């Protein structure tokens, strides 16, 4: 699972008001090379919750990869785009868990696939 998906995903448990962002417990992180597309990054930037992305990168062991604050003007810089691209699309959580911020429920990640299935009483 990439941080792109993590940034879109929120906890779906019944009664949870603010299920975003999910905490990440990363046990194994891998990096896979992906072609950089500046247009995609510019298009997706307004939809990204920056704070959650920075927190995600920190949880994956890259605390200095991204600046703490970002705005659209920074997209002109190549260095920023590369860092943004690496954090968003190249880092994968292979093993670990996602944690609901409100209830503390853990969603295990196996082989890079988070198990988001809810129990009957959580729907």
């Amino acid at each position, binding site marked *: *699972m990439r941080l792109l*998906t993590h*940034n879109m*995903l929120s906890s*779906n448990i019944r009664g949870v008001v603010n299920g975003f962002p999910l905490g990440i417990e990363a046990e194994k992180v891998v990096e896979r090379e992906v072609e950089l597309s500046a247009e*995609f990054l510019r298009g997706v930037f307004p939809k990204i919750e920056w704070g959650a992305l920075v927190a995600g990168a920190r949880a994956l062991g890259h605390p200095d990869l991204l600046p703490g604050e970002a705005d659209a003007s920074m997209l002109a810089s190549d260095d920023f785009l590369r860092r943004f691209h690496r954090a968003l699309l190249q880092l994968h959580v292979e093993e670990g868990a996602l944690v609901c911020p409100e209830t503390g429920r853990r969603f295990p990640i196996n*082989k*890079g696939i*988070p198990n988001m299935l809810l129990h009957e009483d959580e729907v």
Partner: protein
Amino acid sequence: MPRPELQAPPEIFYNESEARKYTTSSRMIEIQAKISERALELLALPNDGIPRLLLDIGCGSGLSGETLSEHGHHWIGYDISQSMLDVALEREAEGDLLLADMGQGLGLRPGVIDGAISISAVQWLCYADKSSHEPRMRLKAFFGSLYRCLARGARAVLQLYAENMDQSEMIMTYAMRAGFAGGVVVDWPHSSKARKAYLVLTCGPPSVQTSLPKGKGENGELCSDDDESDGEESQTVGIFERNRPRKKFRVNKKGKGREWVLKKKEQMRRKGHAVPPDTKYTARKRKAHF
């Protein structure tokens, strides 16, 4: 074969052996690729070459996602079957995969997704597989969360095999209730096999943009699919005459003769069967004795 929906819940039906078919059967792969190509076309993304973030609901082994990746898009795939997702991993699907139940809602932030496709998956929502399942609630949760996560003006194209009119009506009703505009596009409506129904939904109020594209083969255009003429025709062939006279077996008094036997044996040899060698005894008549 009964419909898979009537046999077992999806997470059970798509077990390892069923999932394996999606890597080995070139026919299945081809059909899936064709449908997802068409779904992407119906999604009508602006033709500017910019990659988008798409959803693939019921992504299974990632065949449909492969089409999305080929067009350069990033995608998030949902599926309920672990076996199918394992196959997707094997095929090195480029999108992110989630093990989740669409009937529990998608759980995405509002307005972040540029489009969604789903190949032969949504009809599963109409079946209650567990005591806690209530199809109407599940349809409502699914379409509600889909509507929320799509950006304004974004489309969702859901290809589905509805069992009957009631079912497709029910699905449509819940899509409309969630706020979607749109309708059904049917490709090849006159063919029982190639017929494919796509639910094309648009986020937001009806406008020029939300007008439905035309289905293929609506005005008698012929379906060029090669797999039209393959072995499974028997399902669609009707019986016209019940008491058709049996074909009479022509019996020649003399039998077929040596030449005919040699020709047949040669044919079988060419096919690779084990055939006894030709000798002077071949096709010789037996003595008439008791």
